[in-house]
């Protein structure tokens, strides 16, 4: 690498300096998860694709990656869904509309929507995995004519933990969406399916040759979801999945998110399954 070919460092942007964005709206999604709508200075668009993430920071507390939950079709602001997991998310939970937070991004390799166009789209989302998948779901809904059927399989620990319940109700009603939901353990009032998410897959009515699938959920879910898809005859090259690793930079420098040769923040978080199926550390 010849350094002199580069711009002079003074012209380079500071990769680690966030812009200050404002929290516009906060809503409790469940006991553990909270929704935020965030606006960049001047209402500028984030310019992301479904599946991408931002690095969110609160000064003095820390920074972490969060998937963008809104579709690029939402203009003027973007949405996040955050689960309480530790120091940063704990403090984030206490923030009210009007607070400024640091945002860097969008980062990562999102869902290549071109590959999904003209095809049936199968979304498999477990728990918090719905947050990034919602970006894709809403993208498809807002661009109905470019895609085939939309099939959603969503699984959650319990009915109390279901996220975005208003939207779920709409999806359920929407005749253009084949919507399935299940909970590991339902409360007394729960009337839907119970069982882990993979129990939904065998019953799906799929046009195998013309369906592309995207999976996101907790690490254990992947192995089982893949097995079910396989037994249904689903081809590997039609599967995409979003992975999660700790990240300290988001721009391919800090090394934390590396899986074998691949940086999740650069090559992922959304991977084409054939690219990672031989990587032992991936799943």
């Amino acid at each position: 690498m010849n350094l002199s070919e580069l711009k002079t460092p003074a012209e380079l942007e500071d990769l680690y300096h966030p812009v200050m964005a404002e929290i516009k709206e906060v809503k409790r999604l469940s006991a553990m998860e909270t929704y935020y709508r965030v606006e960049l200075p001047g209402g500028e668009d984030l310019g992301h694709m479904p599946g991408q993430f931002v690095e969110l920071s609160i000064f003095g507390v820390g920074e972490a990656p969060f998937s963008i939950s809104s579709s690029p079709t939402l203009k003027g602001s973007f949405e996040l869904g955050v689960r309480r997991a530790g120091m940063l998310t704990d403090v984030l939970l206490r923030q009210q509309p009007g607070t400024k937070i640091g945002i860097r991004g969008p980062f990562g390799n999102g869902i290549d929507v071109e590959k999904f166009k003209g095809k049936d789209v199968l979304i498999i989302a477990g728990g918090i995995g719905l947050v990034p998948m919602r970006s894709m779901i809403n993208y498809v809904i807002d661009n109905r004519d470019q895609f085939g059927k939309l099939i959603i399989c969503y699984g959650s620990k319990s009915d109390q933990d279901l996220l975005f319940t208003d939207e779920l109700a709409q999806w359920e009603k929407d005749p253009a969406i084949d919507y399935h939901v299940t909970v590991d353990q339902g409360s007394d009032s729960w009337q839907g399916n119970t069982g882990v998410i993979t129990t939904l897959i065998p019953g799906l009515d799929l046009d195998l040759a013309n369906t592309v699938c995207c999976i996101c959920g907790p690490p254990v879910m992947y192995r089982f979801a893949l097995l079910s898809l396989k037994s249904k005859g689903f081809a590997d090259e039609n599967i995409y999945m979003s992975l999660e690793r700790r990240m300290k930079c988001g721009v391919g420098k800090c090394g934390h998110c590396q899986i074998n040769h691949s940086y999740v923040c650069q090559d992922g978080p959304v991977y084409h399954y054939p690219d990672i199926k031989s990587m032992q550390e991936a799943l």
Partner: protein
Amino acid sequence: MADKPRVAIFDFTGCEGCELNQLNFEDQLLDILAHVDIVEWREAMDGQVDEYDIAFVEGSLSTPDCINRINEIRRKTKVLVALGACAVQGGVNGMKNTRPIDEVRQEVYGDDKYLFPTLPALALSSVVKVDYNVRGCPMTQIEFLKVFTSLVMGKEPIEPDHSVCVDCKLKENECVYEKGMICLGPVTRAGCDAHCPSFGQYCTGCRGLVSHPNLKGMEEILVEHGLSVDEAWKRLELYNANELEGVRP
């Protein structure tokens, strides 16, 4: 946390070096005092109160009375922070646990041993829930300040779980193994900025072990550098007798 957290400081069996270390924050003491109300601290002030937000507790538990007192403190406080090796792991006091307690009492007090009841020296966490640790012998001042500011800001302090070698290397200290000494840094939890190796002394393990230590590997290193197997484990036990109970071959 409320605007000015009410802080109480207690001591159990230990050398009170950790408490002294708190009085040794000469440069920060006034800032610290500006952020909290100290409501109880026997070593420095008179008086007792009924409840507090944060209790800093030094020392290990080694008499039946200690157990009652720590339970009472836990009831009265929202957050309990263990200060120093004695409170976090049992500290040097734990060494006596490696031998039968009666034998130890006999040695020190002879026939008068029955005058003074005693238990094996226990870490606070073996009796009550401990929210955060400030490790070290004496407690590490930089870590205390980190935990303290975290609590004042209402965020969780991070407890490091990597080896002292990392911090030692970040400072580019000459490794004491190079000088022909031994060192427990490779399996000891960081957070002290490799204080002892920075002064040419070996790490004695006062901050406790990392969470998944390869002790067999550590034993091999020590033996390779001239200690007998027995001596190697004795060195490891200096501060970690309780953690190593049952692990030592």
